């Protein structure tokens, strides 16, 4: 029997490579040369990667979501008894820091410029239900999703990862002067994958549709609004002192509720033609859809990019939970 060196996936180029022999290593693939994070290498087997592609037009809240998600992930040790987290790259550390400072100042992040976004790599250990996973994603500018051909160099996970977060902001779609409609985003997604010869029938794709800025959607159904506002995880994570711990049963219950909410949101989005087309396009391509409603800030943004109070994100973990769930089943 020959000993085979363990293999791992480079988080930058997504190629499978031999696990390096020492901690300070770089991806050997020509053109990549990425500094492999030591933590990522060291805990690869125990905390395997979950790649998520972020997809959505400009101003739909992608960056704010990432900040809000980071905020929650930094506090989940209140809720999961075995949980710990480690940002694994400098950009991830910076995000954690900015979340803290911007949170205190009540300031939103600036618009994401174009260009390949930095790698966000967060090791998450001891998550109830899923154990350890390394969340790997890149923020990117929404301008790239304006065309039928999304440049893959800006959305590098799009082809090779089964799960994407598709951000939609119904409130912005109502006010848009560019003639955009919801189904166009799905068209761009499907067209990009087809142009790179993705076979939707061979391996099923999953899309988590994240309805953002839900707190300011005036006609959001009451039950969804209630769901949004009453986020137990945020309440617990934000509370001083002891809080209820989420065990396997409570996680299962939460996921079940997420499932019902997903159906509700899907039904609500299909109240107009664009929404119907959106859903049908996905089903026609065998794309597994899940829906979430979130508010990354918890309150409307006022003039001068300021929040009236600190951030109070609502249900921002839901899309992430969907991604974990879908990739665990795959």
């Amino acid at each position, binding site marked *: 029997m020959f000993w085979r060196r363990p293999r791992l996936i480079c988080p930058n180029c997504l190629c499978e490579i031999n696990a390096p022999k020492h901690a300070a290593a770089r991806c050997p693939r020509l053109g990549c040369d990425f500094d492999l994070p030591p933590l990522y290498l060291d805990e690869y087997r125990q905390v395997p990667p979950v790649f998520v592609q972020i997809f959505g037009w400009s101003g739909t809240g992608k960056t704010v979501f990432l900040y809000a998600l980071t905020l929650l992930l930094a506090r989940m040790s209140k809720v999961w008894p075995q949980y710990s987290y480690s940002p694994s790259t400098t950009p991830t550390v910076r995000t954690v820091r900015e979340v803290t400072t911007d949170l205190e100042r009540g300031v939103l992040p600036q618009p994401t410029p*174009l260009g390949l976004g930095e790698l966000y790599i967060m090791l998450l250990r001891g998550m109830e239900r899923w154990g350890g996973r390394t969340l790997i994603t890149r923020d990117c500018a929404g301008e790239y999703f304006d065309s039928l051909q999304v440049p893959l160099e800006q959305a590098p996970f799009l082809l090779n990862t089964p799960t994407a977060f598709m951000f939609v902001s119904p409130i912005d779609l109502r006010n848009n002067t*560019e003639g955009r409609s919801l189904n166009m985003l799905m068209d761009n997604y499907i067209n990009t994958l087809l142009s790179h010869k993705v076979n939707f029938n061979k391996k099923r794709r999953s899309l988590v549709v994240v309805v953002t800025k839900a707190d300011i959607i005036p006609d959001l159904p009451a039950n969804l609004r209630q769901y949004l506002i009453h986020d137990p995880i945020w309440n617990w994570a934000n509370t001083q002192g002891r809080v209820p711990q989420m065990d396997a049963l409570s996680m299962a219950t939460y996921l079940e509720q997420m499932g019902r909410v997903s159906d509700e949101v899907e039904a609500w989005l299909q109240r107009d033609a664009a929404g119907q087309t959106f859903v049908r396009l996905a089903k026609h391509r065998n794309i597994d859809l899940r829906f979430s409603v979130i508010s990354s800030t918890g309150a409307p943004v006022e003039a001068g*990019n300021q929040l009236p109070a600190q951030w109070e994100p609502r249900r921002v973990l839901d899309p992430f939970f969907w991604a974990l769930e879908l990739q665990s089943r795959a």
Partner: protein
Amino acid sequence: MIRASQLLFTRLEPGYSPRRTAGYQTWYTSADLAPGETKEIEQRIQCYWPAGPADRRLQCFTLASGRVVLGHSVAVMADEEINDRQGRGLIFLAHCLVLSRKTFDECENNPFAILDSFPFYTSVRDVLKAIGPVGSEAPQAEHVLRRYGGSMVSAGPWGGEEMTKLLSLALQARQLTGQRRSLLVMGSPDAIAMTLRLAIWLTPPGERLYCSFDTAVDRCPTPQGQYWAVGLPARQGGGYIEVDAEGGRVVSSVATSAPGHDLYLRSLRAWARRSQAAEIVDRVPDLQRMALLLSEGGSTNVGTIDEEVRKEVRREFVTLHRELFERKFLGAFEPVVGKEAATQLLRHADASPDDDRILLEIAIDGSAQSPRAVELITDWILSDVPTLRDAEWRRLCDLGGRCRAWRLRYLSAALADKPDESTREEALSRLTQTDFARVATLLPRRLAPADLVSRQHIEALLARIDRVPMEGAACVELCKALARHGLARYLDAPQLRRHLDTLDSREAGQVLKVVERDTSVPQAVLDVLQARQQPGLVARLIQWGKDARG
């Protein structure tokens, strides 16, 4: 005046967007920017995360088309109507100038000559006001270029030794980017800009084109090798060559040699050990000029030395590399005059008050055939009157002929043990009055008056021999030469007559033999010669005859 195409890039709302979409995009371009160029520029400038409202990013890079882009990006507060209806605070406005290589060359390939002086836009409303509604073309920018001197460059915390390391990295720019390596310049935006400005200033203009940079790549993954230097606030992994802009030092160990620029680097290094950084910055252009002249060579370059290089800097430079210059000097002259003569010539050059200039010029020109080299040889001959072998005189004579240096040709022909009379006379006839006067200073040590007889210079010669002693034999030869050139009538000149009066009988007889049938010779001269030939009884008889007739 320089002209450049323009490109402006920022975040726009659909109402102000040429594409009618929201987001970061190109806003205005000049008509002559090709789509490929625009795309290439966009890819370089599109990622910038200003940390604060006063932030600024500077870029310099070359397009595939060969044109050079100077990028200036500033943080601006998003205008809700124009830029971002969600009012998300800071965005950036990038204003790029696109120059032809020729234009960039007019700035000596120094991007800071423009980045530090051009009035880049810093407000989106100013842009709208200046260029017009969306869809308008950005006009060609025109800018009066002021002289960019050492006073515009600060050495900051950089000392001499570290400056030379920084320079060696700049000189290796092409090689480094080819190896996909970049400098990481760490510090505040001002410190980064100061360091790059200094590095570019230290770099000879011909090499500056390879020193591309982006002063702010924080949060923008930038492949190594895309720029020669990138700026970041702090250290970041990735195997960069690290430069501490705040501390003024090159952190990484680097090779401090740069093939092709060793002389310049060594000079700077030597100066760095004993001069203040500000002094080095001040002297750099002179040093670069001399290094360039030396590398390009050619006699046409030599003439610019005095205008372009300060005397004291030139002197220091030559003194610093004395051995090299002397080696080059000997290398130029040995094939022409031989080893020993070349050494003597070098000693002669060393004794000159302008020795540094001479050595520099010979080194630049690289040959013994330049006007300066020929002049030097001629001066040497005239002042030192060297003893050379005939073969060496012949080589010099040939050199004089090739270079049409008639003084040299004359002297070489005349001073050989076996003079080449026809060449001598031909060269003599071509001398100017000034040249003749100079050559005639060798009377009577090394040249005889007879060697200087020519129709063109007879008057000058006579004036000369009036002031120098002349032996009888020399006088005889002079008379013979005059007769040969049809100038026998000048035997009656007062300057010559007094010498004739001192001839002995044999000498007088020799002259008489040559001139007695020449009808241009005055009778008085013949009488003198006859009298000198037969002194005493004959003279008395001649006189008795004259008296009887009279």
